[in-house]
């Protein structure tokens, strides 16, 4: 178990280094950021001064070394624009807005996916199951951004029940959270349903029924815990969807979160902000995957007990 965690930690660390190199190179390849400061008045010396200021006059490995040592101290650099604020600070002040959106949406989709997935599997091939399958297929096919726009069209433009954009009181949360939850739902739902179907076919479920256990114990105790193992292994993919969902939803609803920050920075070519956000998200993704691995070991006794 300890070995398992240490190995995973090391792997995550190596992966993070790899990603940082990739991002570093991509951003450097994107063109000369000094373009941003160039005016018709700029002289060669001005530009050279800016380059030196930004550390762009040094060789690439050295630039990377500076970048990575700063990173190790939690310094993601400064924005190239406006007041040149530290990137960390900019992300920090937007992060809770994003989380306020992502966390409720994630929890909502999880709960619904679990309930509907189990229901579909237990009532397999009935009209209820077909309904569940339909929800999954619809959710997977309709583009999340389009759905969000349609919700705005209906609920904000025509009926004017909910505000169309920006943060605010509770009513501002309804549309973004529910469309994002609907965007996350189908993947999770399909996973729960199919892994539940497999488990319900197994011999130990038959054995539980032979014992005379009531169906609710058979399903919610014996089947569900085993059925959760497969969706857990797909946690990485769910997480990737969560990030996509956040970026898209924030864009549609003009939600002042990290996703918006990233898009804005992207189109104004503010690369320290972009690389900062990508790195932060990558680190979070790796961390969550690590936690999921540990959770996985907890659910699956065979891994927990492995003498490694």
């Amino acid at each position, binding site marked *: 178990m300890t070995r398992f965690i240490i190995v995973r930690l090391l*792997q995550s660390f190596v*992966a993070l280094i*790899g*990603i940082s190199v990739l*991002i570093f190179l*991509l*951003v450097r*390849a*994107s*063109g000369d950021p000094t373009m941003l400061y160039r005016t018709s008045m700029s002289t060669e010396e001005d530009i050279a001064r800016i380059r030196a200021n930004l550390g762009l006059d040094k060789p690439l490995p050295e630039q990377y070394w500076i970048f990575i040592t700063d990173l190790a101290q939690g310094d993601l650099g400064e924005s190239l624009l406006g007041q040149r604020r530290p990137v960390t600070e900019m992300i920090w002040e937007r992060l809770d807005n994003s989380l306020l959106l992502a966390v409720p949406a994630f929890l909502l989709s999880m709960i619904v996916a679990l309930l509907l997935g189990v229901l579909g599997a237990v009532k397999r091939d009935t009209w209820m199951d077909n309904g569940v399958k339909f929800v999954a*297929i*619809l959710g*997977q*096919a*309709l*583009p*999340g*951004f*389009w*759905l969000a*726009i*349609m919700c*705005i*069209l209906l609920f904000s*433009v025509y009926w004017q029940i909910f505000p169309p954009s920006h943060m605010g009181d509770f009513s501002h949360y309804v549309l973004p959270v529910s469309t994002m939850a609907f965007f996350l739902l189908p993947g999770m739902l*399909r*996973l729960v349903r*199919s*892994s539940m*179907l*497999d488990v319900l*076919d*197994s*011999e130990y479920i038959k054995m539980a029924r032979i014992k005379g256990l009531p169906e609710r114990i058979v399903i919610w105790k014996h089947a569900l815990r085993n059925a959760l193992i*497969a969706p857990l292994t797909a946690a*990485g*993919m769910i*997480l*990737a*969807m969560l*990030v*996509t969902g956040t*970026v*898209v939803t924030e*864009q*549609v609803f003009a939600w002042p979160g990290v996703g918006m920050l*990233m*898009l804005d920075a*992207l*189109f104004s*070519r503010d*690369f320290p902000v*972009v690389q900062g*956000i*990508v790195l932060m*998200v*990558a680190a979070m*993704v*790796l961390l969550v*995957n690590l936690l999921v691995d540990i959770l996985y070991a907890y659910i699956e006794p065979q891994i927990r007990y492995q003498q490694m």
Partner: protein
Amino acid sequence: MATTKLMGLDKVSGVKRPKSIFLNLTFIIPAVVLLVAMIMAIFAPLLAPYPYDQIALTDRLMPPAFMEGGSTAHILGTDLVGRDILSRLIYGAQISLSVALMVIVITAGVGTALGIVAGYLGGRTDGFLMRVTDISLAFPAILIALLFAATIGPGYWTVVIAISMLGWAPYARLIRGEALKLRETDFVAQARIIGTSPVRIMVRHIFPNIINPLIIMSTLAVGMVILTEAVLSYLGAGIPPPAASWGNMVNDGRSLLDVAWWISTFPGVAIGLVVMAGNFMGDWLRDKLDPRLRQI
């Protein structure tokens, strides 16, 4: 499956397949939708009533034909600069399907090769490749794509490369799992006993047995790729205007929701229909070819 197997019914049934599979509606409808989309894509210049970028400022924001003020000249209406929505939809199909085809050929090729090698050879090769795969899987594709769009600049190949960058990982993982199982089968053991070379085993024994999952995965990926392209184009990091992509069409109409709902609605419906058809097709193929792959 497990129960029928347990009772030995698998040997009883499962020999003959019904001949009427093509009469199945879950097959016909998606097949028709995909076929229509393909015809639209291939023959776009012939089918579209107008060029995708023909601006007609006199016909701005014209509603669809069935609405008051609409005209049969623009069946699905026009956008802010008077471009015909139907024509742009037809050209959009070209973008969506060709991106899907490109990405699937690239990702399926790379993913399958890596998957077979990792699964069959095992050991360190496998360990390394699979960690890379895991990280790719967990890494949000959209971030890479946005980075690409910012660095290379948005465009057709940016989209293809950006989606392919991480899109090979699900293939690699699936194929690797299959190859791993196949490696342990008796018939591969038998081939090794006979003295068959590893390359021949991978080509003759492993590959033919992963074709089914490969086809299923690729069909299901059609929808995924089209959706991703749409998201990128919507966010402004995909196919740049004036080229018509369903995604950027939705974006065009976003600020005009209160006056011209049709601009955003039709391309969204088109995406939904094609993606759903792709998914249905994949599901159908899976049920026919390999029901145990329900999880992909």
